[in-house]
């Protein structure tokens, strides 16, 4: 049933409802304000007597309160107007409802709904086109617009949905010939080729992925496919790196993060106990003699990296007693604080060296702290910091 019919049905139901109750009103309880106030006045007197019985009012005040209740009742009865109610013939209401209800409801709906949203359901109440019909329409369109790369792309996708993989490849190829710089097309075309080839990567599909990454090295979809290719080559390390990059490129709250996080987690299972390549930061720390003299050898030196923005908590940390510190540490993913937040997942970090008496996560008043500049994790950098 079309949307229009549904709307009509809803309006008709609403109109019938009103008309029904217009001619067959809900039964009234026949209580008028006068009888209500009289009943309540009597009830208040009864409650007053109960209060007297419960010693909640004394005899003298009881009599006064009794008078007050009577006076109040008298005033309330005076206030009640003596108006004769009647039931009229409300044909005008009937006409008004029949005219106004559809006009008001559809009018308000049209006013509130953006045109592009309502035009489609209202102008095309027919059944939506089937995929086959859509493909035919696009083919017809392309007969007169054969250089429309977008249309070829949509046709390729439509054929793919229809299971016509050969036709889909042809359509994508046409689109590719017209506009080989369309990132979206390159990714879709590659995906389709992989699907058509029983999830195997062909030379052509790998070439398309590379081209996509040349256009945008951080394109998440291209990175995802590149990661899939790496897995097919059993290069799990590369796959993980590519997917981590894809994950980093996705905005927080992105809809694809969920899937990618799951894939990464599955990859961990596949990879088993294998060591993953990871980024590392080598930190050389010079602690001056003055500082060493002022501190106990039991004090801690904490070397950690934190995100450039956001929460100041350490991403990866090493905590060593001053007496055991050799002057150099290497921070890797193994030193990460949270499993899902390894060092390698960050593009840029700041290195912090802190000497602390307690070794507490919170910075104390006597702690000495030195920070590095912002550093790129992917460079596997060597940092030199001096604590003076």
């Amino acid at each position, binding site marked *: 049933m079309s*949307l229009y019919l549904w*709307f009509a049905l*809803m*309006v008709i139901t*609403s109109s019938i*409802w*009103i008309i*029904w*109750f*217009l001619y067959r009103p*809900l039964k*009234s309880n026949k*209580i*008028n*304000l006068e*009888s*209500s106030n009289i*009943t*309540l006045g009597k*009830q208040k007197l009864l*409650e007053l007597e109960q209060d007297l*019985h*419960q*010693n*909640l*009012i*004394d005899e003298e*005040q009881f009599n006064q*309160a009794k008078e*007050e*209740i009577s006076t*109040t009742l008298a005033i*309330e009865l005076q*206030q009640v107007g003596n108006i004769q*109610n009647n*039931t009229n013939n*409300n044909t005008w209401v009937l006409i008004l409802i029949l005219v106004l209800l559809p006009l*008001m*409801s559809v009018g*308000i*709906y049209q006013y*509130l709904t953006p045109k*592009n*949203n*309502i035009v489609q*359901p209202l102008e095309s109440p027919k059944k939506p086109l089937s995929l086959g019909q859509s493909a035919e329409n696009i083919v017809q369109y392309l007969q007169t617009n054969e250089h429309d790369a977008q249309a070829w792309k949509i046709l390729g996708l439509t054929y793919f949905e229809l299971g016509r993989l050969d036709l889909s490849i042809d359509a994508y190829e046409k689109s590719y010939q017209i506009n080989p710089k369309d990132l979206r097309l390159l990714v879709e075309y590659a995906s389709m080729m992989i699907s058509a080839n029983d999830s195997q990567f062909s030379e052509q599909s790998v070439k398309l992925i590379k081209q996509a990454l040349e256009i945008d090295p951080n394109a998440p979809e291209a990175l995802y496919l590149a990661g899939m290719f790496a897995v097919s080559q059993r290069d799990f390390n590369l796959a993980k790196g590519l997917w981590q990059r894809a994950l980093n490129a996705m905005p*927080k*709250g992105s*809809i694809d*993060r969920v899937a990618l*996080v799951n894939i990464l*987690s599955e990859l961990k299972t596949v990879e088993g106990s294998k060591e993953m390549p990871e980024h590392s930061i080598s930190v050389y720390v010079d602690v001056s003699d003055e500082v060493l003299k002022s501190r106990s050898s039991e004090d801690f030196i904490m070397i950690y990296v934190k995100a450039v923005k956001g929460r100041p*908590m350490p991403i990866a*940390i*090493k*905590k060593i007693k001053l007496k055991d510190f050799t002057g150099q540490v290497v921070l890797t993913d193994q030193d990460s*604080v*949270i499993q899902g*937040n390894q060092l390698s997942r960050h593009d840029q970090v700041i290195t912090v060296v802190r000497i602390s008496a307690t070794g507490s*996560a919170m910075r104390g008043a006597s702690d000495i702290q030195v920070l590095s500049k912002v550093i790129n994790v992917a460079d596997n950098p060597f940092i030199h910091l001096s604590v003076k």
Partner: protein
Amino acid sequence: MLIEIGHFALVLALVFAVLQVVLPTIGIIKHDTTLSGLSRSLLLMQFFWILIAFVILMNAFVVDDFSVKYVASNSNTQLPSIFKMSAVWGAHEGSLLLWALILAAWSVAVSIFSRRLPAEVLNHILIILGLISIGFLLFLLLTSNPFERLDIVPVQGRELNPLLQDFGLIIHPPMLYMGYVGLAVPFAFVLSSLIRGQLDSTWLRWSRPWALMAWAFLTFGITLGSWWAYYELGWGGWWFWDPVENASFMPWLVATALVHSLSVSEKRGAFKHWTVLLAISGFSLSLLGTFLVRSGILTSVHSFAADPARGLFILVFLVIVIGGSLALYAWRASLMQSNNTFSLLSRESGLLVNNILLVAAMLSVFLGTLYPLLLDALDLGKISVGAPYFSAVFVPIMIPAVLAMVIIPFLRWKKDTTQRLTGLLKWAWVGVGLLFIVSALLVDNISVLLAVFLFIWIVAHSLILLFQRLRQKGSMSLAFIGMIFAHIGIAVFLLGATVTTQYGVEKDIKMDIDKPITIAGYDFILKSVTPLSGQNYQGNKGHVEVYFEREKIADLRPEKRQYVTGMPMTEAAIDRSLYRDIYIALGESLEDDSWSLRIYYKPLIRWIWLGGLLIALGALLATFDRRYRLRVKG
């Protein structure tokens, strides 16, 4: 298509709300009972269409229809089904739809359960409720459409705020809204009386059960919110004087005053001015709370929207409601004169004093909540008003109110004497005094000592009152039992809140695996921290063994979760009992086999919510008192 039907259903609901106001108004003016009587049937249809819209939106969540912007923004395929359903009210648009649905449900309840009301009064009330409904439906349709479609449909939706993926979300907002919206009913009763110019016994008597019911829901909703914050936010606190919490607390204080003021007005015909003002301010404050939460003025877990258009709409609505009702009040002020007299020492005076104290307490919260916002808005600097302000201002106002609360039921109506009162209660006071002296020997903390005194004071007086009534045959009523429950609830809450604040222990500590740490007489051993993987999060799960006097009493497993959206969440592990809670929240890994943890020892914390539940139960019992089931003959 279903989504468009839902949207259209909402439009139809608006049309019916308009008709619910217009046709009965014409009927009243023309003295046409058919037209004026249409209000009930029009209301039923309005409710039906809102319900249809609500069900369609819920269905969109359940079937993951991400073509709907609201669904795509607040749910995804991995969200457990129960949270998909509750996600409907997890953000602004859906919660407003729930608000409109609850308002319509309250209105239907009024039309069904107010059969003792004269039809003309009921019709006026339904017209006012229809007007409020128009305001909220317009707000929904013009600024907060939950059925808005997306041009490009995402294959996956976003994450519902992890804080809201909890049982608390399923029940806390609906209960709170029941309270907020419920205050619209006594407000509608008052306004209909002002419009009719008949501030009589009828509206006073029949509006009280509705005020009690709304107060019960509001109490329950606030209690649930406090309990939820305690276990979900990972701070171990139960009340933060957060402006949004205050926004619900202010109408609660006024509603408390209103149910007491109404009890005098309906029995003795006094305090009509006061009762009218309280009914107006109760609902106005619930609208103010909505304005604060929805305008983007406040930022907290409760704040749904930072949209000035929404803020402006509610502000205009607020001005119309408050301005209109106060203008009506001024116009009809002469009708509220009462000749009923009472002396300085009487039950009426006692209730009036308590009412004034409650309103003063509300004003202190109002000031502490809005003053910093006002300064900020005027660029006069930022100040933070927190617990120290409220402890210094709010608490001293409430102490006399609590002391008087249990004395007032002993006072006689209209006039009493100190001799009679002291004669009646002197032995009780001696007993309370002795118990207090014994407590003073055992308790070394002034605040706790004060709380113990107030607890003994309230419980002793309540029990004496109960035994007194038990001796008088036929004098027990649900209203009386409800009052006893509510007053004892206050005592239980007071003691719980003070003891947990004063004697609670909170430690942020570093724990090594298998190395015991002692806190508040309990030994804690961190046994392990293992990786954790849930449907839409990953993280770590700790295992802490808790020993008391060398006997193991609990295995607690706090979790630290990292949701796929990157939002971290602490799931505290709690060993619960009526006497104390042990609360553990897992922090960060510090080094090999070493973790930061927050361990809290919270004595009597459950008494806070037990007290809240007793108050709500008391209010609910009073609602069903036989006096409100009185048969009125036509």
